[in-house]
């Protein structure tokens, strides 16, 4: 499975990459902003996008909206990975079309497991 991890923090991109590749055994690509994420998605057509919410410039919600606006990208499942997880915020993500939310700080040893649980609900086996 090809996963695109979008986060403006380099440390978190690195940890995420190690987790997705080392623990999940998946193929991870990285983007540091919403703009980069759109570009990367267009080029690589990932199976899943992990999206940070709070990013300078285009934030997670805006990025998701842009993804949803492009027919070729609209169907890629998006999971938010964010520290902003108040109940109302989570509801907003889901309403906007995210398939799941993973709370920061995440446990890198368990991140792939959490992703699998979310995808399983959509009938996707990763």
């Amino acid at each position: 499975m090809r996963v695109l991890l979008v986060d403006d923090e380099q440390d978190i991109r690195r940890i995420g990459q190690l987790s997705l590749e080392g623990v999940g055994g998946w193929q991870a690509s990285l983007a540091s902003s919403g703009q980069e994420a759109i570009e990367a998605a267009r080029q690589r057509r990932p199976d899943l996008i992990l999206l940070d919410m709070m990013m300078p410039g285009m934030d997670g919600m805006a990025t998701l909206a842009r993804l949803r606006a492009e027919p070729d990208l609209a169907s890629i499942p998006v999971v938010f990975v964010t520290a902003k997880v108040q109940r109302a915020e989570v509801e907003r993500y889901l309403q906007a079309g995210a398939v799941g939310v993973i709370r920061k700080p995440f446990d890198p040893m368990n991140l792939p497991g959490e992703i699998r649980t979310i995808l399983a609900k959509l009938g996707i086996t990763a």
Partner: protein
Amino acid sequence: MVPPKLPPQEAARLERLRSYAILDTPPEEAFDDLVHLAAHVAQTPIALISLIDSERQWFKARYGLAAPETPRSVSFCAHAILQEEALIIEDTHLDARFVDNPLVTANPWIRFYAGFQLRSPDGYKLGTLCVIDRQPRRLDAASREALLRLARQVIAQLELRRNAQELRDAQEDRAAQSATRQAVLAALPGLFFRLSSSGVFLEYHGRDSDDLLVPPAVFLGRSFSEILPEDVAKRFQQAIRQAHREQQVQILGYELELQGVVRTYEARVAPAPQGETMVLIHDESPRAEAEQRLRALSELQSAMVRIQEDFILNDASRQVFNRLLDAILKQTESRFGFLGETLEDEAGQPYLRTFAISDIAWDQASADFYREHVGAGLEFRSLKTLFGEVLTTRVAVISNDPARDPRSRGVPEGHPRLTAFLGLPLFRGKRMVGMIGLANRPGGYDASALARLEPFKAMTANLIEAHRAVTARLRSEQALQESEARIRAVVDTATDAILTLDETGRIERVNPATARSLGSDASELVGSPIGRFVPALEGRAWALGRVRGEVWVRRADGSEFPAEITESPLGLGERTLTTWIIRDITERLKIARLQSEFISTVSHELRTPLTSIRGSLGLLAGGVLGALPSAAQEMIGIALNNSDRLVRLINDILDMEKIEAGRMDFNMETLELEDVLVQALEANAAYASAHGVRLLLETSTPGAVWADADRLAQVLANLLSNAVKFSPEGGVVTVRLRSDGDGLRVEVEDQGPGVPEEFRERLFERFSQADASDTRSKGGTGLGLSISRALVEHMQGQIGYAPAPGGGSIFFFTLPGQRPGLLHAPIVMLCSTSPALAGALGEALRHLSCQAYPVSRTEEARELLSARRCDLLLLDLTSGEACLALLEELRRTPQWASIPVIAIAGQLLEEDTHLGAFSLVDILELPLNEDRLVQAVTAAFLTSRSRSPRVLHVEDDLDLGRMMRRLLPPSWELIQAGSLQEAFRQMERSTFELILLDLSLPDGDGELLLDRVGDTPVVIFSAKDASPALARRVHAALVKTRTSAEDLRGLLVRILRRSEDRTAPL
């Protein structure tokens, strides 16, 4: 017009009137003053003293009217003298007797008339003192009373005038007779002296030699200039000379003091042959006294008039009493005196407080004392005195030798010597109200002095009473004014807009803040309907309770601001006004938003670096980056544990913050508790097994609770992790589910050391841990139990601790449960084709703890209605004809006919009145007002009741009582009881559907009530925590500071809905 009848005994009345010789006399100042005063008192343009003659009314005094008289046939006053009470005609146009009276239909255009009869002392009504206005009006009681007094003064003046006339007549008579008298002088008996030409007494004879100052033997042969005082002798000398010169009798009046009494003599000096003189001396004292008496009486009358005028003109000050005292001193020829009221001290002993007292200061100290205290009234409490004798015996006291009187204990040193004393108690009915004290009349006091005081007694007593009443009224008026001023100051300076609305919702009064916040002048606001400023009220009839809580308020310029409106009815006589306080909450909402943003941002900012730390450590510890040396592995483990703890701490602090700020939201729903427990055990199984602890679930009663699944899971995770942490390795944590009254109870029991007795009280407080070292060894945050308690209580439950029989701990919590078929979240079906409307309604219904089922087609609705129960149907009639058809079908179908329906209409039109046929709970107009929706839904669940629910609120805090009245739906009857006893009385009198109970009551613990409530649900709402044992006995126990108004209302609504379910299942 009805001409006046003649009064009975008219002939005698006319004779009495004429006896005053007043008719057709010129104006007199005394009477003019009285009509002037009357017009002033009544505030009328016209006042008259009208005397009813046989064919006319004649005005002795006129104010504001030119005519000197009018025919009796058109006289108002001629009507007035036919009755006892004053004749008051507030509007002549409404009185058949006068409507066409020429004095009404032409000049002076009388519209208002009030006539006060002038009653002669023997009861004849001679006429009236009347006041007249050219516009209708009323006369208040005070003016009426004043006019009545003035009418009495008119009579007093008439009487006085007649006395004066008699006196004048007498003098005239005397002058006419003087010539005759002179002729017979010599023959008159009396003291007769013959003097030689050199003034030597040659002869004397008299009836009573006792009248002489010196024995005849002493003065015979001596000159009168040796015998008489110098000034008198000189006048005699002149009179004698003049008599001889003019050969006429000279009359000489003089006074001599005889045995301490001044007597008046009249000497007639007649020339005799050979230069001799004959002198006849007549003791004039009796007549002089009578004249003096008459003069004094006249002075007294005028003093009384003055005093009463003073009093009528509201100068009820000490001046009145000073004047009265002066008049009394003069009347009784007393040197000193006082007037005062009698009071009683705490011990019931009478004492005296003076209103007026002669200045008898005899040295500097007493003068200072007098000056300082006389204004406020001097108080005299010593009863062993002559005045004390009056106070205690309540009878008049006369003492003409006070120094030796056993009733007196003497006077202070330096006090002027008392030579005589008279004390007279004053009564009103049988009540002694005051006394008059007089001293040092030359010659002392006797019964005649008492007689002279007679005219003052009633008047003084009345004045004292009136003064007391006026003082009391002034005092209460002043208190009222002060409190009004205080309130006005608060209202005027309040930053909140405060308005008074009339019965129709129009603005009647506003404070300055209203003008500021609505952006309009007070003058423009007054009279405007409040709906102009509150969009939610627009186009709707005004009624109390239509607007509450947070609404938008529109300024005059059309801009709007969020506001919180507090409404309270204001009973004002027969009117029921409404007071509104509009608080601009723009700032508050902004702060709340900022607070929420802050929480969110902090949480993000703290978690981001932690994500890196926690992630790096996790990868290292997980071995993803290769194996580590065991010491490094150990250190990484420590770092990982502590970063986890830091994450938990941040989460807990943020939760706590949200709870305290009231920003924690709860999605309440019906949950199968057993399912929740199974999930919780699964979620915490890994943690337990890591500690070598087994989790065990024992359930005996499956059942549902009304709770928020996530918050419940949070509570369970906390209790389970605590239990696991404190369990010995290999221990078992048992989770039990059992029924608990109406609800369910979950217990988590461990085999750990238990909680030390002394710590149990503080167990649920923040950052409280039995052993400070626990924080580190057990990795807790110190917030878990505190958060759990807040969460459980928010879900209307209770949390507590009990020691386990085996020595471990049992943590338990209860939740309001529901037995199948009885308790359920109300199922509300929404039928609308508009997703936006359905969304908004669904949201609102969820807040009301209802389960909402939106359907967009009527077929769907029918399907759903057949498949499951429906407690309420919200029908959007703007969705098309099909909805109306559904409504018709619903009402035709027996099993659906009783489902309450709330209709939603675009704009309510005339033709929509046919909707009345469908017995709708309510019709809501678009745009939807959420408050209205809440009221309608609440009402829907209560409509099947035969009467509105009655709630007994046992609470001694009145503010809270009022708050509760605003909080609960207006249709509910809320009965307040401020004490246990009052609550018992109310419970004996009637039944209640719900009792809301405070534990700390002035006459005992609220718990005592529980033995008598029977099946009535009780909710404890108290400042202190209810003990778990107590909590089990009631429906719910809430703590005031930890319960929001919305939660409380929600709970009460649910309880009442539930108790209704039992009696009348939907």
